[in-house]
């Protein structure tokens, strides 16, 4: 029997969905595998565009065409990562919400999203004027660098969660 929940996160954790995932021997690892594959696809496809923006890879290719190829996969994989991540969260909601690495990961994902949103609403709108230039505008390079840094640290936070989940009360 689970104790009476004292806050929203415990209520989520002690829900039938949360306890089903937590008590199953295979559900959590299986959902985790889906989450990892989805997140790897997100990062891998985002990195293709980011590395072009900072001028490291795919130099002979138009960034708009690279984005057109990768974005559907980035968004599809992100949706899968969000759903699988949500299921993982439900099984240990309270433990996650007191873990600074989890909170850091969520904050960085929000920053990565804001960075992308700002880039698409500003610099990206003029991409046709600069995407054939040998060097991209500083704002495009900055967006690429920030995106890469955010996602690398997000992966590190994800691993750090696994090593620190039981040490915060």
């Amino acid at each position, binding site marked *: 029997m689970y104790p009476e929940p004292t806050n929203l996160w415990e209520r989520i954790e002690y829900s039938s969905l949360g306890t089903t995932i937590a008590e199953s021997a295979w559900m959590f*690892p299986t959902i985790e595998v889906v989450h*990892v594959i989805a997140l*790897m696809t997100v990062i*891998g*496809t985002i990195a293709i565009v980011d590395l072009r923006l900072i001028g490291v890879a795919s130099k002979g290719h138009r960034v708009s065409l690279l984005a057109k*190829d990768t974005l559907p996969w980035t968004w599809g994989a992100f949706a899968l990562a969000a759903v699988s991540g949500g299921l993982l969260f439900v099984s240990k909601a309270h433990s996650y919400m007191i873990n600074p690495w989890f909170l850091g990961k969520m904050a960085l994902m929000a920053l990565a999203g804001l960075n992308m949103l700002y880039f698409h609403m500003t610099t990206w709108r003029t991409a046709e004027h600069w995407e054939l230039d040998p060097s991209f505008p500083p704002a495009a390079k900055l967006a690429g660098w920030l995106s890469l840094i955010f996602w690398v640290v997000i992966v590190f936070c994800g691993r750090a969660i696994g090593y620190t989940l039981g040490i915060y009360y």
Partner: protein
Amino acid sequence: MGDFLFEMSQWLYTTPLNEFAQRVSESALSEWILSWFWTIPVMQTFHILSIAATLAAILMLNLRVFGLAGHATLGETAERYTRVFWWALVIVIVSGVSMLFGDTVRNLLNSVFWIKMVLVIGGILLALGYANVLKRQTLMAGGGVAAGGTKVAGIFLIILWCVIILAGRWIAYAPS
């Protein structure tokens, strides 16, 4: 399945691998890796990012093979993404071997670890063959369309890579 994996791990403990794993775990390198709490998570981050690069390279290559993406010829796309794949694979192997020193016993005496190793070797051989076939087809067809067998190999390669990722995560959960 769980019983089989458990029996296999138990058998590994009876082999000379057990003594070898214990000796490696007491080596100076292992102790150095374990001396800092964050060494393994940092190595795992490199491992995950490099696997993400291999996965993205296979995905983009397959999208071009199926005509779903890519604006360069098949040969150019193959050359571009196989180069990414091989460089990322180097980091996968270096980070993977480094992590072994950090947790030698749990890995070397784990049935799922060895299943993953067999799959990785299979994945590398298949990727080698896939890249060679793509190059040959490009030369013959002048950069156009991939043959049906190549498409099947591409799908199989991406599934195999996903199974390798699955095995990688299940090392932590395998019965031993």
